[in-house]
C-alpha cells in the first residue's frame, strides 16, 4: 500500500484523467497495425517458401490435338532432365476448364476454343533455376513455348507487402511518438499545477528523482490501464476481421491467421506503451526541474 502513496495529488489533475483513454486509443490503433504487419509478414514468408518454387510452362496450341500431344511430350522430356526441376506435370484439360470458368462462364470454354497446354513445374527446394535459360532451351526445341516465372510476379507482390509493412512500422512509431508527446504535455501541466508542493518538497530536501518517481509511477499506471483497455477493444476487432477474412479469401490468399506468438506480441503492446509513458514522464520532470531553482 505504501508504494502507491503519492506526495502529490496527481490523480485529481484534469489533464491526466483523459490520458488512459488516449493511450487506450493509441494501443487500439497500434494493435491493428501490428496485427496487420504480422499477418503480411507471415504471408510473405509463406509465398517466399511456398509458391516461389514453381513455374508454369505454356505451350501454344498447334493445328491438331495429336501435334499438341507431341509438343507436350517433348517439352516434358526437356523439363524432367533440366537441373533443379523436381517434378513436371501437365495440367489436364478438365482442370483447365475449371480454372477458366470464372472468366468465361459455365460452358464458355468449349473444345472449339484453342487453348494452350499448361505444364506445372515444381522446383527442388532452394534450387536456383535460371528461368530465362530454360525458356530459351524450350523455345529452341518446341517453338511457341513460354515460361511463366511466378518469381517475378511474387517478387513484386512481396515488395508491395514490404512497403505496406514499412508503412505499418511508421504508423507504430508515430503512435509511440504521439503517446510520448501526450505524456510530456500532461507531465508539464502536472508540474505547473503542483509547483507549490514541489517547491516545498525541494525545500525539504527532495531530489529531482524523488519528484520524478511520483510522476513516472503514475504515468506507468495510466499507461498500463489505458493499454489494457485498448487491447480489450482490439481483440474482438481482430477476431472479427479474421473471421471475415477466412470467409472471403476462399483460396485467393494463403491461409494465414494470428498464431500464439503474434498474440503474445500484441499482449506486449500495453507494456511497451506503459514503459514509454513512464520513461517520458521521468525525463520530462528531470528536464523541467533542472530549470527551476
Amino acid at each position, binding site marked *: 500500500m505504501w508504494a502507491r*502513496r503519492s*506526495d502529490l*495529488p496527481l490523480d485529481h489533475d484534469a489533464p491526466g484523467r483523459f490520458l488512459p483513454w488516449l493511450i487506450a486509443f493509441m494501443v487500439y490503433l497500434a494493435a491493428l497495425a501490428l496485427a496487420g504487419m504480422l499477418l503480411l509478414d507471415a504471408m510473405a514468408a509463406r509465398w517466399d517458401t511456398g509458391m516461389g518454387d514453381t513455374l508454369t510452362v505454356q505451350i501454344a496450341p498447334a493445328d491438331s490435338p495429336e501435334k499438341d500431344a507431341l509438343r507436350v511430350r517433348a517439352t516434358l522430356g526437356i523439363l524432367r532432365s533440366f537441373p533443379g526441376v523436381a517434378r513436371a506435370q501437365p495440367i489436364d484439360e478438365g482442370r483447365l476448364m475449371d480454372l477458366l470458368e470464372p472468366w468465361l462462364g459455365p460452358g464458355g470454354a468449349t473444345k472449339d476454343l484453342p487453348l494452350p497446354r499448361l505444364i506445372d513445374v515444381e522446383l527442388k527446394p532452394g534450387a536456383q533455376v535460371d528461368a530465362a535459360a530454360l525458356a530459351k532451351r524450350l523455345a529452341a526445341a518446341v517453338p511457341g513455348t513460354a515460361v511463366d516465372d511466378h518469381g517475378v510476379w511474387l517478387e513484386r507482390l512481396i515488395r508491395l507487402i514490404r512497403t505496406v509493412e514499412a508503412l505499418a512500422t511508421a504508423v507504430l512509431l508515430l503512435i509511440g511518438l504521439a503517446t510520448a508527446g501526450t505524456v510530456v504535455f500532461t507531465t508539464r501541466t502536472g508540474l505547473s499545477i503542483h509547483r507549490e508542493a514541489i517547491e*516545498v518538497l*525541494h*525545500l*525539504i*530536501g527532495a*531530489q529531482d528523482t*524523488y519528484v520524478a518517481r511520483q510522476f513516472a509511477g503514475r504515468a506507468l499506471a495510466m499507461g498500463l490501464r489505458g493499454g489494457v483497455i485498448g487491447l480489450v477493444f482490439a481483440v474482438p476487432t481482430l477476431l472479427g476481421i479474421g473471421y471475415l477474412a477466412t470467409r472471403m479469401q476462399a483460396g485467393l490468399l494463403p491461409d494465414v491467421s494470428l498464431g500464439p506468438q503474434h498474440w503474445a506480441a500484441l499482449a506486449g503492446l500495453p507494456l511497451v506503451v506503459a514503459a514509454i509513458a513512464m520513461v517520458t514522464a521521468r525525463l520530462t520532470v528531470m528536464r523541467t526541474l533542472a530549470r527551476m531553482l
Partner: protein
Amino acid sequence: MTTEGSDCVVRFESVGLRYGLGPEVLQDISFALAPGSFHFLLGASGAGKSTLLKLMYLALKPTRGLISLFGHNMATTSRRQLPALRRRIGVVFQDFRLLHHLSAFDNVALPLRVARVRENEIRKHVVELLTWVGLKDHVNIRPTILSGGQQQRVAIARAVIARPKLLLADEPTGNVDDRMAMRLMHLFEELNKLGTTIVIATHNETLAGRLGHPRLRLDAGWLDAGTPDQQAAGKTAAGAFAAATSKSRAEQSSESAV
C-alpha cells in the same frame, strides 16, 4: 574572537536582495551564526525577516554578497548538492506550506521519506512528535480542517522531525496561545541542546524577552547583529532593554493614534 571561518553554520557577507526591479529589501547584511547558537530575529512587519530566512533556507538567491552554509559557498554550490544541504535545515514557514491532500502524519513524515528512512521508524517518530505537540488525535486529519494553531504545530513538527542541524522558524508561534507558545519554544530549546542552531523570526518582543537568547534586529533592510562578542557570550540584557522600550513606545504611539 569572531565567528569566522568554515565552522560557522551560517555566514552572510554584504548580502543584498531585491525582488525583481524593486528596491533593496535587504541591504549589506553581514553576520555569522556559530554552531549550537540560538537567535531571535526581530523587526517590524515588512522589515525583511522572512526574506532573510528565505535566503538562509535557499529559496532565494542573493542579488549581491556572499552566503555560506555549513562551510559551503552557495555561489559555487551546484544544484545537485542542494538537497543534501537542505536536509540539514528544518524550516517552519510563515504560511506553513503544508501539503493539503496529505494527512498531518504524512506531512510530518515528508522529510524522513525524502531522506529514505524506513517506514516503521517513520511511524514511531512521527506519532511520538505529533503527540508531543498535542495533536495525538489529529494524526490522520488533513490540514485543511485543522485550526491555524494546529496547522502551525504540524508545520513545526515537520521542521524538527529529522533533527536538522539548522532550524529556521518564521513567526512559529503567531497562531497559538501563550502557553502553547512557551511549550513550542521549549521544544526548540530542547533541539538546541542537542546541537541544532536555531533562528526564530518574530515580531513578538515579549516572547523573545522572556527567553534570554541573543537577537538579530532588522530595521528597514539593515541588520543590527550586535557585536560578535555579545553574540558569542549571549549578553542580551541591553538588547532586551532596547526591545522592551521600543515595544512600549510602539504601544504608546498606537494608543495615541486611536
